[in-house]
């Protein structure tokens, strides 16, 4: 039996497998297919302070080995989230990574406060800060595309979150140098990084010859983007090894569909792995990938998952 347990910035998880924010709603729906308490952690849909209707439809376009989405952070607002969703997740005993979002740094902080002060805070394994949101104060430029905005969000969130609940900053790959953003958020106090969020993309309807998405642009996800995710993890992990970015754990996300895919992210430097779009194809994927991962490690003669984290930086298995 391969030991799949990992330590996520001080939080022990029995498995590296997680859902990805926005790809599993808030748990009930996926719980009809798999027992989500068996996951390393369940990651909730990014929640803002108030209810959000999201974008008009079409909100999605299938692309080769991927998809575009423009959901627009539809959600019930943090109050309803805590009372209905977090409470339920708490009741079934799930380990929860709560993903938070905001249009201003102080909105992020307010959402975090509400979550960690709720009666269900004991279910919260980590707070994931989705900084790939438009910054209202900066012409709608996404926080994650700019070090100072990202730094500010993490700084304010950090003030609200008690010790023992790590803060994960979720980075966007749509930047010239992702290590620069990584350094900024870790210096602001992030205890870990989640990489990657979606890539900005556009699809055109080949009959109407207009953007397929009502919102024009959307986020590209799925196996198509896995090489970009592995690259981002590789670069940041390498920068940590070189001391250019303080070393913190990385949660990998992007295009994971099979155990072999998860292994790519781990070997490149990720400690845990999220499964997003693949769950639309197969709702059992977040657990299935974990089983396939265990089988793959077993076949390679590896006993402990922790032994392969970042191993590609050291020349691989020998």
């Amino acid at each position: 039996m391969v030991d799949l347990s990992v330590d996520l910035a001080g939080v022990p998880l029995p498995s590296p497998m997680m859902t990805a924010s926005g790809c599993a709603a808030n748990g009930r729906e996926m719980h009809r297919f798999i027992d989500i308490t068996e996951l390393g952690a369940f990651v909730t849909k990014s929640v803002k302070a108030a209810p959000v209707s999201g974008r008009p439809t079409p909100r999605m376009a299938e692309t080769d080995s991927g998809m575009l989405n423009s959901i627009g952070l539809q959600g019930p607002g943090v109050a309803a989230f805590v009372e209905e969703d977090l409470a339920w997740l708490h009741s079934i005993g799930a380990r929860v990574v709560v993903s938070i979002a905001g249009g201003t740094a102080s909105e992020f902080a307010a959402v975090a406060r509400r979550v960690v002060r709720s009666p269900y805070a004991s279910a919260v394994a980590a707070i994931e800060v989705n900084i790939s949101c438009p910054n209202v104060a900066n012409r709608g430029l996404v926080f994650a595309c700019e070090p100072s905005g990202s730094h500010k969000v993490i700084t304010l969130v950090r003030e609200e979150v008690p010790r023992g609940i790590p803060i994960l900053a979720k980075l966007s790959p749509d930047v010239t140098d992702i290590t620069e953003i990584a350094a900024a958020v870790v210096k602001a106090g992030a205890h870990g990084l989640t990489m990657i969020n979606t890539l900005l993309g556009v699809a055109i309807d080949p009959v109407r010859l207009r953007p397929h998405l009502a919102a024009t642009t959307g986020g590209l996800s799925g196996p198509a983007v896995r090489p970009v995710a592995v690259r981002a993890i590789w670069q940041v992990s390498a920068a940590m090894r070189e001391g250019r970015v303080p070393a913190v754990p990385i949660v990998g996300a992007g295009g994971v569909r099979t155990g072999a895919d998860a292994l790519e992210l781990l070997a490149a430097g990720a400690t845990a792995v999220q499964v997003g779009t693949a769950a639309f194809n197969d709702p059992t994927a977040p657990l299935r990938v974990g089983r396939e991962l265990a089988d793959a490690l077993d076949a390679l003669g590896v006993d402990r998952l922790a032994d392969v984290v970042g191993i590609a930086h050291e020349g691989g298995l020998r």
Partner: protein
Amino acid sequence: MTPSHPLGTAAREGARVVQVDAEVIRSAPAGIYQHLTLVAPGIAELARPGQFVAAAIGDEHSSMLLRRSFSIHRVSPQGAYGGTVEIVVAAHGPGTEQLLALPTGARVNLIGPLGRPFPVPQEPVACVLVGGGYGSAPLFWLADVLRERGCHVEIVLGAASRDRLFGVLEGRRSADGVTITTDDGSEGSKGWVSDVLPELITRTGASVIYGCGPMGMLRSLHEAAQEHGIVAQVAVEEAMACGIGICMTCVMPVRDATGTTKMVRSCVEGPVFRGDRVRWDAFVDGRCLVPDDALGAPEAGAR
């Protein structure tokens, strides 16, 4: 190609939904459509008319990740092969093309039954069931259920042309009356289903209309129902990525019981909605807008 299909299967207690590797045991043309029968243990036992299944396309090396949804045409919980599910597939894009080319013996990872079924009246009232194109697929089973409850059932089948009608013979077996309209007059009366509805509602004293088909047709059913002071139950067909409520792509604006408009997932809160709850005004030119008064809508102008 025999897909290796390592996708998962699931059947959790109490979930009332299963994920199975179904096997195609029959695939036959029906007009321009393909009628597929699949052995899908579990689904047949749980399903009710108006629910749907979501099919994966190919195995883990398929470039098509998203599930395709199909109304359940019929189910047979027992049978020589175990429970079977029938669907009617129209060629639309690459996913449906792959499905309709599947040979018998091929496997398809299916999830179902999904969504809310057509609500069935308590009393033995008269009902009009309206199907546009392959939208009629779920109606014959619904007709059987209604007639078992003593309802008088009229079926209206409409399509652009004769080859796009589905289930004319089946309609004659399942319903008390069948009316056919085609845009080009190649079968039945020339025109739209909405042309024949008022007379039919009046004549049968129907108290509910059930409909499945394109959005424009559903809207006209709702309007006809409203004019006659009755209710339309419509099964919509919004673009869906997962079919199971986890992606939020399939939303549309629907009023709740208190009148508040919310962007609700048509895969879990639908696909069947009461016509008078749907915000028809939001559907414009192939898109669906977020009404300004919807819960959480961006401030007007800020969009």
